[in-house]
């Protein structure tokens, strides 16, 4: 297995003469969860889009799994954009089938869609409503089906843009649990978020962007300086209160 899931060298992008991200150099280890943090306009989403070829970088190189360019590893990648507008005239089954068709290649041509769809729908808890129109879905359910499409082809690398935004407590809890499970299964996860609590709970590594430049890259514990006892105590208390709250709602057993 590759040690590096992603290697970025000198990535820069500007729009209309204004630099959005500038000379980004970083590496993301395989099997870890990496958080991309920064204020609004820091360049988080643009960085993700550059990595995925949605936005074409002005300069720089991106290599996946040590040496491969994007085109070679697209089948190994799952992605959920920020606030995607899903095709509401389809039901979950049709939506997944569409994305299944888009991912066909000579290696997976004979794979069974029904089986794969059942697995991911079960994983995101939408098995019961697979033939219901996406129009009737709540925001949380839409986020879940978005994640289901990202997981459909069993990706090795998962990119999530603000996956926690707009989710209620139950949705956040579900997503956190799912991401932990995926990490245990060996999936490399990169996500952007404004939520410090999720970052602290989930991330192994963190990449802080400020005005399009890297302000910090490294392990989360280094960033938080967890040797600081007061900080560690505050975090422990925070999780204790949150766990109690979820337990009362019957979400955390």
């Amino acid at each position, binding site marked *: 297995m590759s040690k590096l899931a992603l290697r970025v060298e000198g990535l820069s992008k500007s729009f209309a003469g204004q630099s959005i991200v500038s000379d980004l150099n970083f590496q993301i280890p395989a099997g870890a969860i990496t958080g991309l943090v920064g204020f609004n306009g820091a360049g988080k989403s643009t960085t993700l889009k550059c990595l*995925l070829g949605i*936005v*074409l970088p002005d300069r720089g190189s991106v290599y996946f799994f040590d040496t491969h360019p994007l085109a070679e590893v697209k089948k190994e990648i799952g992605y959920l954009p920020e606030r995607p*507008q899903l095709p509401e005239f*389809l039901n979950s089954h049709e939506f997944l089938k569409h994305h299944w068709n888009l991912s*066909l290649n000579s290696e997976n*041509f004979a794979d069974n869609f029904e089986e794969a769809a059942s697995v991911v729908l079960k994983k995101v808890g939408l098995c019961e409503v697979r033939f219901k129109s996406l129009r009737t879905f709540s925001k949380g359910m839409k986020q879940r089906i978005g994640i289901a*499409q990202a997981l459909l082809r069993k990706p090795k690398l998962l990119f999530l843009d603000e996956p926690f935004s707009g989710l209620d407590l139950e949705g956040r809890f579900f997503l956190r649990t799912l991401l932990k499970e995926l990490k245990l299964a060996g999936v490399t996860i990169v996500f952007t978020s404004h939520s410090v609590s999720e970052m602290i709970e989930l991330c192994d590594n963190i990449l802080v962007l400020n005005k399009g430049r890297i302000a910090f890259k490294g392990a989360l514990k280094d960033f938080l300086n967890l040797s600081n006892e007061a900080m560690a105590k505050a975090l422990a208390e925070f999780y204790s209160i949150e766990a109690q709250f979820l337990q009362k709602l019957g979400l955390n057993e």
Partner: protein
Amino acid sequence: MTNIKLYWLPVLSISRVLQKELISQKLTWGFLLTGIVLLFLSVFLGEISIQEKIRVQLHIGLFGINFVAMILAFTLGGFQIHREIERQSCALELVRPIQRSQWCLGQWLGCFATLMLLISTLLVLHFGTIQFVLQSQGASGSLSLQAGWEFRYLLAAFVTLLEAVLFFTFAFLFSMHVRPSLSLACTFVLYLACYWQSDLEFYARKDDEGFFRYAYEVLKWLLPPIDQLKVRNSHFIFNAGAESLNWTQGVLFLSLCFLWILVSFMLAELSFRRKDLV
């Protein structure tokens, strides 16, 4: 064989989903309803005319269908890609292992299929109403169409469809470079320029210095020759026999139109390859 299948399956999936979406939209139904209203208007105006019943019905009906077809073609071509980018659904699809050319082709085919479906529905309805009026009029009808009019109607219908696809592709190309409203305006200007070619020629001939004449000659080769084959009018369907058609000119017209569609699509696809989807 497998490679061809692997290339086309995603393309067809994109076009099918898009067609389903477009059909589920109120705007599309609005266009269809407008077309139907214009068809009813053509029947009504035909009924109240004293001697030109079929001619009026044919003329206004075809005008109505063409009007709806062109508005739909301009709108679909101008707005579709922007809409996809704005709501980020293209990002979701393009991250999949497909090429941008496949996505672009899927979008074009989806719009094309919707355009064909809508215009064909209106044409069939129009044809049906004419048949109905002709039959209800019977042998005692004051006016009847010459034999073979069905073939000439089919030709007119084909030209209507072809013209809609041609201008849809132009709008599609423009939308890769400019905002939707500007793309709409550019396509409309091109449409007008195509239809004003004969007027331009008239003025060009009167130019003494030759500059205007030269400019017209260049323009003539740059613009699709849609004003050359005027089969989409009641006069052709009503009176002229198929023998009055200039087949050489017709084949040239068709080839040039297909060439224009192909070139415009390829340019649009090339532009899309280098487009930032934000």
